[in-house]
């Protein structure tokens, strides 16, 4: 009765997810400014190559090229009428590559944020967000995705809307947020708050976690926050291959394959079940991660000090959990309203 991802998680201690989509597609000639989702139809060969790049490097799971495939994002390119077509194609190509892999590979239907700010601060209502995610989820399901993969979310409201869409299409799903602002998401959500949030949903995700954000070390600090919550749900870590730096007129990602291999093993030693990369993570990084995960012995649960020593320091002193939990401002007047 269980879904393919749950079955694979039951068989294995860890699964290797994929790396970057954007970074890889730019290397294949995607013009910046162009929505990558159009390539699902215009250049299916390149999208197959993207997926194969991850599978051949050892990924057990890869995300479809549909991150910006919701009506709100596609509207920026006047392609909002093509949500069903582009997402279905993204998943169909994924199915084709996964089924030819000769081993179980999970096709995860990527769903990124709408880019809109949700009510009451912004204009996007819960109903409208659910409708957009529902449309996208339906198409990913029709194209053969095994699981929906909601990622880079920063608002609790948007996370809930995406969960509701998964419920509407009756699909298992995973969800990750991007913790990029002093250890919290842009909207102020802490790792502990996400852990609590997933347990309150009527259809909790198969696995949850963090993606993107700042560097690999920050991402693992976020993982320690999930672990402290004590819930037993499998955790996902998809960190960036280091931090882009502008040095002597050139952009330089400081995350080498060796660093990402260290990151992968530290993630595993923390107890992360699904380990992958995000921006800057190429097939060579994935290969190094796979090899390290298969060959290096379990090192015991690493401390924050060890993580910082191996992967670089954290971007902020605290992350809004534990003793760093925010002290509220001293008010002059009485709170009203």
């Amino acid at each position, binding site marked *: 009765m269980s879904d393919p991802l749950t079955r694979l998680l039951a068989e294995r201690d860890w699964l290797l997810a994929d790396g970057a989509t954007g970074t890889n597609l730019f290397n294949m000639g995607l013009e910046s400014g162009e929505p990558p989702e159009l390539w699902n139809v215009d250049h299916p060969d390149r999208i197959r190559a993207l997926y194969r790049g991850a599978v051949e490097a050892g990924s057990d799971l890869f995300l479809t090229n549909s991150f910006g495939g919701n009506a709100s994002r596609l509207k920026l390119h006047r392609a909002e009428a093509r949500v069903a077509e582009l997402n279905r194609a993204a998943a169909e190509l994924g199915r084709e590559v996964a089924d030819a892999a000769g081993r179980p590979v999970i096709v995860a239907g990527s769903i990124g944020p709408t880019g809109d700010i949700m009510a009451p601060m912004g204009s996007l209502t819960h109903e409208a967000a659910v409708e957009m995610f529902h449309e996208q989820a339906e198409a990913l399901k029709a194209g053969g995705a095994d699981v929906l993969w909601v990622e880079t979310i920063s608002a609790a409201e948007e996370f809930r809307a995406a969960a509701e869409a998964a419920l509407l299409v009756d699909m298992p799903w995973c969800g990750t947020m991007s913790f990029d602002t002093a250890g919290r998401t842009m*909207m102020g959500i802490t790792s502990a708050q996400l852990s609590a949030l997933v347990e309150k949903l009527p259809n909790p995700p198969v696995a949850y976690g963090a993606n993107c954000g700042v560097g690999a070390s920050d991402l693992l600090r976020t993982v320690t926050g999930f672990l402290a919550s004590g819930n037993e749900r499998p955790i996902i870590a998809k960190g960036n291959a280091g931090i882009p730096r502008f040095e002597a007129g050139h952009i330089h990602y400081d995350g080498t394959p060796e660093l990402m291999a260290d990151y992968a093993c530290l993630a595993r030693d923390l107890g992360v079940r699904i380990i992958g990369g995000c921006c800057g993570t190429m097939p060579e990084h994935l290969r190094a991660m796979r090899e390290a995960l298969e060959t290096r012995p379990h090192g015991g649960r690493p401390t924050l000090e060890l993580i910082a020593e191996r992967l670089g320091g954290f971007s902020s002193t605290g992350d809004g959990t534990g003793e760093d939990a925010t002290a509220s401002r001293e008010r002059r*007047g009485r709170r*009203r309203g």
Partner: protein
Amino acid sequence: MAEDDDEIILSELSDEDLVQQMMDDLYDGLRDEIEEGVNILLGRGWAPYDVLTRALVAGMTIVGHDFRDGILFVPEVLLAANAMKGGMAILKPLLAETGAPRMGKMVIGTVKGDIHDIGKNLVSMMMEGAGFEVIDLGINNAVEKYLEAIAREEADILGMSALLTTTMPYMKVVIDTMKEQGIRDDYIVLVGGAPLNEEFGRAIGADAYCRDAAVAVETAKDFIQRKHNQLAASQ
């Protein structure tokens, strides 16, 4: 709703207490209360410019500092900015009538090739919240579009945003074109986006790199203040 015992009647407060209360209300994003407070101060004969600077801008400065310091996050800041906008809507026609100094006008957009606009949207909302006029050009802007807009709008500030390492160099293209046309120094150029840093901002000839939306507002206020001072000094 607050308990009846605790109900604060804004119109019964002294000017000083009312301004303090408005700062708290801004902090809590209470738009109706801010509108009421603005009307009361105007009714008491305050100049629109004083209401703007001493109550609203001062209140938003506290919000901005707490955002910078990681005490407030985007949702609270947006609610505060929304409350501020409620007050601004009342003050704007009056400020124009009284010829009060403008806060400043900003043209903003993500650079050519970049479709990532959340950061840019936040800066827009916070700049408006701080009393600036903002012309949002949206995503994927070519140099011509920026230059046409800053001229047409007689903007004080040009804001450029990029999330990608592949698109951030385009900011230099825009600034270099401004230099070629001899208009670079007519504008304050602020740049921002996740992969940027101060060094990059300096290297491409921007006036400043802004780490986040709160810093963008503070930086814009500083530069506008300097501009006003220079104008005053040269008169």
